[in-house]
């Protein structure tokens, strides 16, 4: 029941805002809907934790602890982002960048986007999952192009074409999977249902599944932003309105990776070769390397962090490729923290770009003098995203390294080097922009941002800190259940 409700809320939100999104109170309503969704995801997670997996809509919806985990992340980040976008949009409005009509479009699409992601996470039907993911693309394409600047249109076009093509491959993969499963589960509805597929995963035809898996990885991998399929990502992140950049890199990438994970379980079951793991490791490794090297040349602050997203997704993918309970836990933890921290960073970046009127790094200077709060937030976020303890990204990176050194020792030096370079470049840029506290008279701290500006940022960073210092034991149980439902056996 709650499972259906969780879809209904954002859907009605989308409808409502589609109708009355241009009204003054709309942003508040947006927050309201997002909060309700978040609350529902929490309830759902608790339900799942206590009563085990839920199934609804004649088995088309299915939530276990893995998906509930991602649901909570999605709900939470979506909620805080709605807060952020309220502030963001107000300031945009003061700058006279937007009309009520476009606000309406924005808000409606925002809810729609949340909806599609929730469907992806909650769907038991791989076909439905594909549909929802494609839907997410469509919803965000217009959001990316929302500012209507040439660059934005370019970016969203690129996004649309590349992701569209990619996702088409994934559909072919789905067809192949169906083709294989149909033999064991018989034609008709059940052959694409995860719950059923999992039961018969060992009997699926290996050759077909391996083909299918390749198509899946190439398809959904495009949306994860795995190198070399990543080229839409920096543009989309850079040109879209910042709240969208936040949810794109904080949520959409996660969701796409989630899809890959779901398929990987089947592939692992069907073919008794390390192929799926190797594939993921390869993609992850390449992504980390290229992303870290590419950062130095970035002149656009949002692109910079977009590349860091690529890197972190690569790390997570690598972790899942390595497999085993520790690495898998590390991967999940990494995704969780990354969504929190990266979106927090984008919140800060959004306001910084607004105050300094440009998102080109060379023209952003002396944030520390103008808006000390923001520069503090940015620096903290930067330290967190580059994996400095006590933020949880460090924990996951430690574990990933510890596992990688067993499975792929020869990759480890490169990974370390990549992490080092990333750290160097990011911190260098951040310091460059915050430009010390040169209290030059002409720069007086600008109109101080209200608490509302900062609380989403610090909430996220605080969570990341908490996960890194006092990881709650009950949460760990949920993670372990998630690991189990990823088909990894936890011994010892």
């Amino acid at each position, binding site marked *: 029941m709650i499972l259906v409700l969780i879809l209904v809320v954002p859907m009605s939100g989308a409808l409502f805002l589609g109708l009355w999104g241009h009204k003054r109170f709309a942003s508040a309503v947006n927050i309201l809907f997002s909060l309700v969704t978040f609350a529902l995801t929490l309830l759902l997670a608790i339900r799942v934790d206590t009563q085990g997996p839920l199934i609804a809509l004649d088995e088309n919806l299915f939530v276990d602890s893995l998906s509930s985990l991602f649901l909570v992340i999605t709900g939470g980040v979506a909620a805080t982002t709605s807060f952020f976008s309220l502030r963001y949009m107000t300031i945009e409005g003061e700058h006279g960048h937007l009309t009520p009509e476009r606000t309406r479009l924005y808000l409606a699409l925002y809810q729609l986007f949340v909806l599609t992601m929730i469907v992806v996470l909650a769907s038991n039907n791989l076909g439905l999952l594909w549909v929802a993911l494609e839907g997410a693309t469509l919803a965000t394409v217009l959001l990316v192009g929302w500012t209507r600047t040439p660059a934005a249109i370019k970016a969203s076009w690129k996004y649309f074409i590349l992701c569209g093509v990619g996702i088409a491959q994934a559909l072919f993969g789905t067809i192949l999977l169906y083709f294989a499963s149909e033999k064991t589960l018989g034609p008709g509805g059940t052959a694409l249902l995860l719950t059923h597929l999992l039961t018969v995963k060992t009997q699926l035809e290996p050759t077909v599944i391996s083909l299918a898996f*390749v198509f899946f990885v190439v398809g959904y991998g495009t949306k994860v932003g795995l190198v070399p399929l990543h080229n839409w990502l920096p543009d989309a992140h850079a040109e879209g309105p910042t709240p969208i950049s936040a949810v794109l890199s904080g949520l959409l990438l996660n969701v796409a990776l989630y899809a890959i994970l779901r398929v990987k379980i089947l592939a692992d079951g069907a073919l008794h070769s390390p192929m799926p793991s190797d594939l993921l490791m390869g993609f992850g490794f390449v992504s980390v390397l290229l992303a870290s090297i590419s950062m130095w040349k970035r002149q656009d602050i949002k692109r910079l962090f977009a590349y860091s997203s690529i890197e972190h997704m690569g790390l997570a993918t690598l972790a899942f490729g390595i497999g085993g309970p520790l690495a898998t836990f590390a991967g999940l933890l990494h995704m969780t923290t990354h969504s929190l921290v990266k979106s927090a960073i984008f919140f800060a970046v959004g306001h910084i770009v607004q105050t300094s009127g440009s998102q080109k790094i060379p023209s952003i200077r002396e944030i520390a003098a103008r808006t000390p709060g923001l520069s503090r937030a940015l620096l903290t976020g930067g330290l967190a995203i580059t994996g400095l303890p006590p933020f949880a990204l460090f924990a996951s990176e430690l574990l990933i390294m510890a596992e990688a050194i067993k499975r792929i020792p020869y990759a480890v030096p490169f990974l370390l080097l990549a992490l*080092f370079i990333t750290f160097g470049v990011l911190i*260098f840029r951040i310091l460059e922009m915050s430009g010390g506290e040169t209290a030059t008279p002409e720069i007086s701290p600008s109109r101080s941002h209200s608490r509302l500006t900062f609380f989403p940022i610090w909430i996220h960073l605080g969570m990341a800190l908490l996960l890194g210092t006092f990881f709650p034991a009950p949460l760990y149980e949920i993670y372990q259940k998630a690991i189990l439902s990823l088909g990894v056996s936890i011994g010892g």
Partner: protein
Amino acid sequence: MTSLSATPLFFSLSTLLALLVTGLAGAWLLTRRPTFATPIFLLLSLETLALTFSGLRGLLAGSDIRLVLPGGIPDLFIHLRQDPLASFFLLLLGGASTGVLLFSAGYTKDMATKRVAELLSRTTLFLFFTGGVFLADDAYSFMVFWEVMAVASFFLILSGDKTPEVRRAGYLTLLLAHGGSLLILASFALLSIRETPSSIVSLSSFSFEALSQSHLSPKGALLASLLFLLGFGAKAGLLPLHVWLPLAHPAAPTPASALLSGVMLKAAIYGLIRALFELVGLHQLASSFGILLMVTGAFMALFGILHAILQSAPKALLAYSSLENIGIILLGTGLGILYLKTGHPLPGTLALSAALFHALNHAFFKSLLFLGAGTMIHATGETNLNRMGGLLRHMPRSGTLVLLGVLSISGIPPTNGFASEWLLLQATLQARDLSGTIQRSSVLFGAAILVLASALAAMAFLKFFGVGYLGLPRSEGAKAAHECSLLEMLGMGWLALGSLLLGLLPGLVLKEVVKVVSPLTATSLTVPPEAYGWAWLLPLPPAGPSSSPLLLLALVGILTLPVFWLYWGTRRGKMRSAPPWGCGYRELSGRSQASAESFAQPIRHFFPVFFSMKRHLPTPEDPDPVFDLSVEDPHWPLLYRPLFRLFIALAEAAERVRSGRISVYLIYSFTTLIILLSVLRWH
């Protein structure tokens, strides 16, 4: 818990927490009540004093307590442990920081409140997390404390002047520190490998206890120890990862640079010793690694002191001399490993004890000297020795304290610097027990460099003291110099007293240090017979060499002072005073004195390979001749700039990937797909 609450560990922990709370609350309070700065600092110094005593207590009791706190990451809680090693370094931390905090109480008087609050909070953060480093007993919390310490030091540096140079220094510090901790992390990961399948191991395999159970192949062990060396070395200023140090320590405000040099470097030493002797384990170390460590240390000592002589800014000089001292400590450690691995536990223990002893000494006299340099800069408003001079007349008391520090760091008896270097030399002399020419000659090399370095140190610090404190004032600022405040003097006095005691009672110190070392080396030095008592330094009884700084001082004192007093007591008033003769050279002025660079000249000519010099000599015909010389650390042109260029080239190459054209991107996806499929199909 009641039994626990009595232990030093509990005490140290609560002291550290109190320290943190006081610091942060104090910083908050300062923004409202600026006048509270002094009392807050005093309170802090009391707390660090308490920390010192808890360390001392743990050391005397030789206690070794473990404690597991909730928190951290699941299955791996916060493991804490205070064993003698930890106690020793807590003692060091507390001892040095007490003086520094006392000093800051006076030093911050005429600073802007905001800056004071900044300094206060960052200092306490730094101290707290450094203490945590000493107490941590599992890889995760260790890394947490370690990295936050690094970040705190970064902020400490940034709390200096807000100039690009300072920011650059801070950035460089943070960068290299993080690179180092990545290596440490890798080494931890290496140690966490088990034969058991990875599904069995849980997070709990990252506690130090578990890590120390590792069974590595000889290669693996060597790799692990090398990683640790580089990782901790990056923070200890190990060559060639030292470039941040000479930039960072001068950049920071005085108390901060005292802490960075006096305490943080020691934290790195602590980490190295802990990692090598306990995690990798003595049984897995290689004697060749010992040799490597020793030779590196020796080279580092020489390099550091040579560059120190070239510096004209007091803080830079001190920073480079830190390199020298760290080099000496590493040398001792390596020597210890070499001896222990070749079955000579006694000299091994001696060498290691000497190294730790020297670490303690360095913490004291280096902090003292940095504070002294601070007072010099503060009193004159100049940062270059060439603009100081004659300070001893204006600030006789602090000058005397600095003189004490100078004697100590130059390893001149009867100071503590001499005591530890003496022990180290005695250890090197046992090389005749070694077999194999390579081992012996490497030890010989170590000894030769060590003595050379300490002789050079005397030269460097004669320059420091002579140009800074003696002679005539070299600038208006130096003319107007004033004695520093009482609190500052108290702080310096504390440190001076510390190094004096360490130097005069080396026997007692050695006894305690051996307590620290013997668990690591599983041997202890034989106790000297009672006849020698506490005033004696007799490491290898009965026939071994002995020395007694205390008696030496007594001897010279007994002979000298009576005459001194007698002479002055009778003649003082009646003595005629005249302008100095100076070979008849009348117009004495600051400019007629030898400049600071003139000390460096013979060194530059004698060891050219250690410097990369750019020299411009004017031709005889030159109408307006300009002589211009710039000396640089050769690691910049030879190592770092090329590396950076390489990185840039890589980045440029990576740019080719993003042509920005959709079709090209589509081709990427297409080819990826095709390649993967065909590999799958025909493989």
